[in-house]
């Protein structure tokens, strides 16, 4: 064949791209982490060291666990191009359901927990069905859900607080990992677990890097790679050391950490994750690529319901009562966490890790400002401004990049 295409060599491999250019391209990721560290440092200083005290740190983790867990599901929903406003109400409703089952009907905690999780998934499925298959905007469907489940929670509890929960159930939130090694002043199992986690992370990162290099992909400049991993290792070790000085790793933290790793993997590395991003990025293109867009959108809601239920259980177990007001306003923190973490309201963009960092930024601010005795009025204003600022920086960056 005599095709005489002008021979255009592809641009030379960009091996020599400067570290600066790399930093610029990944500013968002590093920026998020740096903001969290800066905010923590700020409050650490302002509270005279109270923030990072083992007891407070443990509280911080416990207080934010349900927000983080819901943010994992919310991120997928937002990436897929929807929103779920009902999570706070679902959270409260599931807590109420758990209380009624365990306290009033004396159902064993295990089947009761399973029933609650299944109910959460079912709620998600119901809402997802309207959104995905009937194309009713998720904002409307879940706004309805917000009202419905807030009402149902009141109804099940008959307006009363119900508690206390069985001791086994409470362990979900108030329990700590048992110290098999019986450390004296430190919780040795927790320390060990932290060390293992840090080592595992470094191992997987190294393997990933080696694989990438083998396929001739461009990799992060070495100083960045080393630097980033050192920071992470330091953070993990610091966290576990501090926690070990109190009672060790709370059960919730373990649950949360496992979920974060799983969802991060799901979003970044699996075909399902890819398809969710494609769905949110360009639904029509996704459908024409053979992706079952309706089913996928539906599943993100089922998943969200399930996680909201789990969060509801954790919250109820932590308070040791189910109150009609439980879960009030959670959806706002959860959604804010996702957007602070870099998710785009129009779908297709966002990272699980970002949402987690976003949730902790909110959490540290809540905690720090409370310690400082800043009134709830100012707290709300400041949180609102931080959300706006984070998104503004994002949008401004994007605009300049175009």
């Amino acid at each position, binding site marked *: 064949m005599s095709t005489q*295409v002008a021979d255009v060599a*592809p*641009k030379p491999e960009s091996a020599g791209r400067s570290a600066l250019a790399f930093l610029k391209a990944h500013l968002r990721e590093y920026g998020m982490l740096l903001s969290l560290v800066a905010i923590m440092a700020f409050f650490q200083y302002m509270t005279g060291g109270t923030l990072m005290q083992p007891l407070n740190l443990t509280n911080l983790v416990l207080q934010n666990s349900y927000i983080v867990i819901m943010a994992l599901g919310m991120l997928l929903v937002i990436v897929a191009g929807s929103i779920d406003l009902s999570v706070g109400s679902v959270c409260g409703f599931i807590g109420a359901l758990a209380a009624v089952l365990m306290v009033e009907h004396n159902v064993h905690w295990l089947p009761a927990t399973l029933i609650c999780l299944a109910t959460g998934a079912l709620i998600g499925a119901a809402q997802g069905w309207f959104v995905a298959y009937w194309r009713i905007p998720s904002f409307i469907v879940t706004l309805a859900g917000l009202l419905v489940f807030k009402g149902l929670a009141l109804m099940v509890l008959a307006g009363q607080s119900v508690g206390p929960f069985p001791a086994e159930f409470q362990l979900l939130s108030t329990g700590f990992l048992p110290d098999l090694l019986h450390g004296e002043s430190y919780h040795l199992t927790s320390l060990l677990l932290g060390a293992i986690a840090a080592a595992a992370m470094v191992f997987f990162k190294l393997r990933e890097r080696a694989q990438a290099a083998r396929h001739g992909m461009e990799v992060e400049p070495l100083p960045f790679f080393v630097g980033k991993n050192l920071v992470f290792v330091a953070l993990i070790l610091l966290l576990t050391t501090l926690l070990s000085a109190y009672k060790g790793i709370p059960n919730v933290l373990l649950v949360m950490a496992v979920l974060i790793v799983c969802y991060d993997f799901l979003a970044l590395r699996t075909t399902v994750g890819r398809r969710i991003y494609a769905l949110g*990025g360009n639904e029509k*293109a996704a459908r024409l690529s053979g992706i079952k867009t309706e089913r996928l959108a539906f599943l993100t809601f089922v998943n969200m319901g399930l996680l909201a239920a789990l969060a509801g259980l954790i919250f109820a177990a932590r308070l040791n009562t189910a109150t009609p007001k439980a879960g009030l306003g959670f959806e706002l923190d959860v959604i804010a966490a996702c957007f602070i973490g870099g998710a785009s309201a129009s779908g297709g963009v966002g990272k699980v890790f970002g949402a987690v960092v976003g949730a902790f930024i909110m959490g540290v601010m809540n905690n720090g400002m409370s310690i400082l005795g800043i009134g709830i009025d100012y707290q709300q204003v400041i949180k609102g401004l931080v959300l706006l600022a984070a998104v503004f920086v994002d949008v401004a960056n994007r605009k300049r990049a175009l």
Partner: protein
Amino acid sequence: MESPASLLEMRGITKAFPGVVALKDVNLSVRAGEIHAVVGENGAGKSTLMKVLSGVYPHGTYEGEIRFGGEPRQFRGIRASEDLGIIIIHQELALVPLLSIAENIFLGNEPARGGVVDRHAAYVRTRELLAKVGLKESPSTLIDDLGVGKQQLVEIAKALSKEVKLLILDEPTASLNETDSDALLDLLLELKAQGISCILISHKLNEVERVADTITVLRDGSTVQTLDCRGQPVSQDVIIRNMVGREMADRYPKRDPRIGEVVFELRDWTVHHPLHSERESVKRVNLQARRGEIVGIAGLMGAGRTELAMSVFGKSWGRRISGQVLLHGQEVDVSTVEKAVRHGIAYVTEDRKGYGLLLDDDIARNVSLANLRAVSTRGVVDEGREFAAADGFRKQLRIRCKDVFQRVGQLSGGNQQKVVLGKWLFTQPQVLILDEPTRGIDVGAKFEIYSLMAQMAAEGRCIVMISSEMPELLGMCDRIYVMNEGRFVAEFGRMEASQEGIMRAIVNAGTLQ
């Protein structure tokens, strides 16, 4: 006959877009009180010219001079040209469906006192205007309740409400039936008698022949000819020759087609419109494509070609789809995109930004999207394998980019098109349906796309190419089907196909109905 002064003079109009020159030194002169037809192929520059005239592209974004009513004009926007009485009616009607006729006619121009709309005045005035265009509907009727033909007339009434001097109609009869078209053309003649000039853009040459006083032919962004029809009628043949008469230099790669057995076949394929399910958008189409063959589907916009392709590809368009799809003589189930892809059918959309690409994602992720299975193990994507596949296509298709992790949104049109091609080649298709594969890309990139098509055909795939650009169909295809209003109305072999022949088939089919 007196010689009316020239109402509009456009001289030396040149308009360039990044990478493409859409208009080159175009001249257009419209006399007062005439109907001036502007004809040309899709992409000849008609719409761009009208956008320059109406101020959509403001003064300064083009070169050349516009004189209207004897004075040089520099329009900053549509409002400026409208104030002088230049009103454009676009192909896609700009009416708000859930507002009434009266509200639409005075939209943005409401008769009001102190900010309060005077509904009574609007109603009375609308009734007068409707009477002028021959509509008896009540001014409070919702636009939604009118047919397309009547909506078109409402648009004209709206133009009349603005003291129109020059009315520009872009393909006004494209979606009208014959009765409505006739009514519209009669109305234009009547307006002419009242001294209103009109620029009519149309593909339907029989209509042009009927009403036009002057015809300007555009081709490839230049004025080819201005024909005066007042003395003696100009035959459609002359118009057609002027529209398409362009040399076919080495714009296409040489091919040595080795055509094998029939691979892909459609039998009695019929598709109904998704919203108006009584309307047949594709009517009993029969198509065959052989191994190594490039088959073209010619036709005007709205002929039903994209609808045909998308309905075959996983029933992605339309309702009540009937007929058979056969591969190698065996009927196959293409009821979902997934199944169609599994059978080796790929569809490269005409709208790559809207339906083809994830603009925020990188090249690698776009390439793998339709065949994630090939780069994953038990649901986990192997980014190394994905990179290798994408990088392979980068080299094979000569995608110009930093690397395959560059965002697709940052690439040029031609390179984006290659990414879409790569994405579908990665699904290993036997049948590749390309819908307007060179739309919006520059000449050099076009040649590369053509070369890739030739190469794919030489590899034994069968290619169905939908295009509105006749030269590229003639340059690339072994066989061409002509589609008009949902039907295949003609079929030409490589040897017998000509632009005149295709155009005539389309025009004749239109006249017959």
